[in-house]
Each structure stands twice: as structure tokens, then as C-alpha cells.
């Protein structure tokens, strides 16, 4: 036995064991970080909006309770939007607040839908609403509600149809798009003058839809589109 109370044999292998264990845990820690933090903090692009600085962001990221801080902060955002005292400056900090709430809790969909709806339909700050929804879609690629909202906002904002079409087409090609999204795409095609694509989609709705109302609407739309195409053709023959 040595002075520490270990047998001489234990005293020999104990330091080696500690070093080996330490190295293995250090190696595993580095390796696992790539899984826990799959992307470098800087490379997260629109997911983490570094323009919005806040003590809460730091507390959330450092404490390991990001989601808890995110939920608590989300209540503050709702209170901010519900407070009429903030209306004179048109809720100027709403986007920043929503952006921070989404950084803290990227999988909480109401932050994007509520924030984008308020920004686009009430405050008419379309670009901020789109940016918020883009963040949401990047963090939640399978979330249909966000794409639907994005499409709806772009549809509302009549000058940006060309930008919304690829988003809608991608969603519809995946096969799980709601009927409303197909309707929006068909209307968008019509707005930008892609009548043949619009006719193709309305025919699809007329054929596949379970709803009588939708089939009636599709038939009416097709009648109008055929008339437009016919007029265009006759104009070009002249």
C-alpha cells in the first residue's frame, strides 16, 4: 500500500486510466458537438438574426433553457402587440421581438404565423413578414402552415407574384399541399399571364376535388380562362 491507501499495482494504472478517460471524453465531446450544434453559429444565416441583440438572447443561449426563455418572451411579445400605447409608432419593434422569439424557440410555429399576419395584414410591412416566414420555413421545412401563410401574403402583395410561384410549386410537387394552396397557385398563374398553367391546375382541381363548391369555382374559373385565351388567340390572328 502507498501513502494514498492504494495498492502499488493500482497506483501504477490509475494515472494512466485518468489520462485515457480524460482524452476519450474530450474527443467525444468535440465529436458530439458537431451533432448538437450541426452548423457553426455564424453559418446559420437567416435562422438566427444577429441584428436583434438582447440580454434575453444571451440568457437563453447560455443557460441551456432557450425554449423556456423563448416561451416567457413570447408572452411579452403578445403583450406588446396588445398594448394600444404602442400603436402610435405602428408597433415598430414587433419584427425585432418576433425575430428574437423565433431565435429562442425556432420550432414554435405561432411566432411566425402570428407575427407575419400582424406585420403583413395589419401593419403592411410585407418584407418583414416575409423575412420572418423565411426564417420559419428554414427551421421547419415540413411545416405547411408557414408556406401557406407565405403564399397568402405574397398573393395579397400583388407586385410579387413571380417570387411566390417557385415556393408554391415546390410545395405542390411534394404532394401534401392543401387544396387552398393549389387554388392560390392557379390564381397566381392567372395574375402573371401563365393561362395554360392556370387552366391545367383548375382542371386538376375540377377532377380531383371532393368539394362541390371548389368544383363549381374551378368550372367558373375555367370558363373565364378559356374566354381570355380565346380572345388572345383571336387578337393574335388579326
Amino acid at each position, binding site marked *: 500500500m502507498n501513502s494514498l491507501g492504494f495498492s502499488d499495482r493500482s497506483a501504477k494504472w490509475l494515472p494512466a486510466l485518468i489520462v485515457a478517460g480524460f482524452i476519450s471524453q474530450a474527443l467525444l465531446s468535440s465529436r458530439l458537438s458537431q451533432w*448538437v450544434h450541426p452548423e457553426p453559429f455564424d453559418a446559420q444565416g437567416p435562422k438566427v438574426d444577429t441584428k436583434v441583440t438582447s440580454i434575453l438572447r444571451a440568457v437563453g443561449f447560455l443557460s441551456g433553457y432557450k425554449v423556456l426563455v423563448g416561451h416567457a418572451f413570447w408572452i411579452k411579445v403578445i403583450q406588446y402587440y396588445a398594448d394600444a400605447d404602442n400603436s402610435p409608432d405602428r408597433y415598430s419593434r414587433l419584427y425585432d421581438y418576433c425575430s428574437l422569439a423565433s431565435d429562442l424557440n425556432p420550432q414554435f410555429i405561432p411566432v411566425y404565423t*402570428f407575427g407575419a399576419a400582424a406585420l403583413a395584414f395589419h401593419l403592411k410591412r410585407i418584407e418583414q413578414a416575409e423575412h420572418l416566414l423565411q426564417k420559419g420555413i428554414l427551421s421547419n421545412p415540413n411545416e405547411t402552415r408557414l408556406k401557406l401563410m407565405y403564399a397568402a401574403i405574397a398573393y395579397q402583395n400583388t407586385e410579387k407574384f413571380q417570387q411566390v410561384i417557385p415556393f408554391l410549386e415546390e410545395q405542390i410537387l411534394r404532394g401534401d399541399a392543401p387544396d387552398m394552396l393549389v387554388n392560390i397557385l392557379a390564381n397566381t398563374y392567372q395574375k402573371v399571364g401563365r393561362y395554360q398553367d392556370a387552366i391545367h391546375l383548375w382542371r386538376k382541381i375540377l377532377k380531383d376535388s371532393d368539394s362541390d363548391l371548389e368544383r363549381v369555382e374551378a368550372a367558373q374559373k375555367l370558363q373565364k380562362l378559356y374566354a381570355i385565351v380565346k380572345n388572345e388567340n383571336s387578337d393574335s390572328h388579326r
Partner: protein
Amino acid sequence: MRKILTVGLFTFRELVRSKMLFVWLISVVVLCGLAFLLSLLSYGDILKIFMDLGLVGMEVSGLLVLLLSLAVTYNTEMDQKAIFLQMAKPLTKEEYLLGRVLGFFAMNALVVLGMGAVVVGLVVLVGGGVVPVLFYDCVVFLLLEMLVLSFLGLTFQMIGTTMVGVVLYSFFTILLGHCVGEIEWLLSKQLAPAARFLLQVVYYCLPNLEIFNLKDRVYDPTLVLHWAQWQDVLLYAFAYSFVVFLIGWISLEKREFK
């Protein structure tokens, strides 16, 4: 093995007698009540909010029990010299330490699982919701975190000379263990050599608690959790616990009981 189990059972009973299960009851009432209140105040998916906050409650109650257990047992074992009774028995110091860890972990696991059962029960039976698939993985990760922290806390107990010191060491290690991801990010920046060295030492010595932090990603559709990840996490948890245990063992051997 039998001796370790006996010490573990003794420790577990000691913690139960110290009213540690009341912490669980209080946590259930306070944290679940708080989660319920927050989910009502908020706008959005109430069950999702409740589940998120319930998972936080599970971790917080586990940590609370761990810190309180460390404080209580330091008082009885070290200050009131109850450790003399254990050391007088035919029991090696590593068996004693492993048994203590086992008892601590059993108490922590009971509190975490008890809290989890309440959260699941409320979500499914009262809210009529569905438990996310990653919830169960998250609970296992929490238990692994508690295992690592039990080893760490008891090692601090063997090293520390005061109860306050032991609790503070443990508390700040837990806090800093969650910052490991941000320390790694800092290390990728341009830093002064001394600062870089210091950060590297901190990075490799601290337990990487973010590895066990699945509660922030329970609803993350991009999270992949296959056997390879499980293997790495389990290996890490046991490797870190092993090193900490050896340090605790050496400290216990060195400690003079007068």
C-alpha cells in the same frame, strides 16, 4: 457489487428520510402550475408549450434535488462525521463512493421520472394531446445528465471542505456545462493565445451538458437520432463519469478523517 448496492440503498433511504421527495411534490405543484399558467397566458399550441415547460420542470426538479441532496449529505456525512460509521465497515472507499452515486442517481431518477409521468399524464389524459416521439429519448438523456452530475457532485463533496463550497462548485459547473457550445463558437474566433488556452482548458474539463439537452429540440424535425448518436452520447456519459469518479476516489483516499 452487493456492498455497492447496500450503500446505494442506504443513501437512497437517507435521502428519502431527508424529505427529498417533498421537493418532487413541490416541483410538481409549482412547476406544473407555472407551466399551465404560462401556456394559458400565451398564444399558440397550449399542449406544446406545456410539454416544453414540463421538460424544463423535469430537469430543474432533478437539479434541485441533486443540489439539496449534496448539501444535506455533506452536513451528515462530513460535518457530523457519519462517514466514520461507513468507513469502519468492511467496505473499500471506491465501493462507498459508487454506492453513494447509485443512491443519488436513484433519487434523481425517481424525481425526474415522477415529474415526467405527471407531465405525460396531464398532456395525454387532461389535454388529450400526443406525446412527441423524442420525449422518451429526452427523458433518457436527462437521466444520463443526472448520472454524470451525480458523479460530479459527489466528487466535489469528496474534494470540498464546506457545504457551501460543494453546492456552489456543482451549481456553477452545471451552469457552465450548458455554455460549452458557445465556448466552442468562441474558440473558432481570433483570440489571444492565453485566452484561447484558458477557454480550451475550460472546454475540455467541463461536462458538455448541451449534449444531453434534447428538451430544446423535442419538436425539431431536422434532428436525427440514430444508434450512432446514442452510442456516442452513452460513451461520453460513461467516459466523463469514469474520469470524475477516479478523481473523487483519489480525493476520498487522500482525505484524512479526524
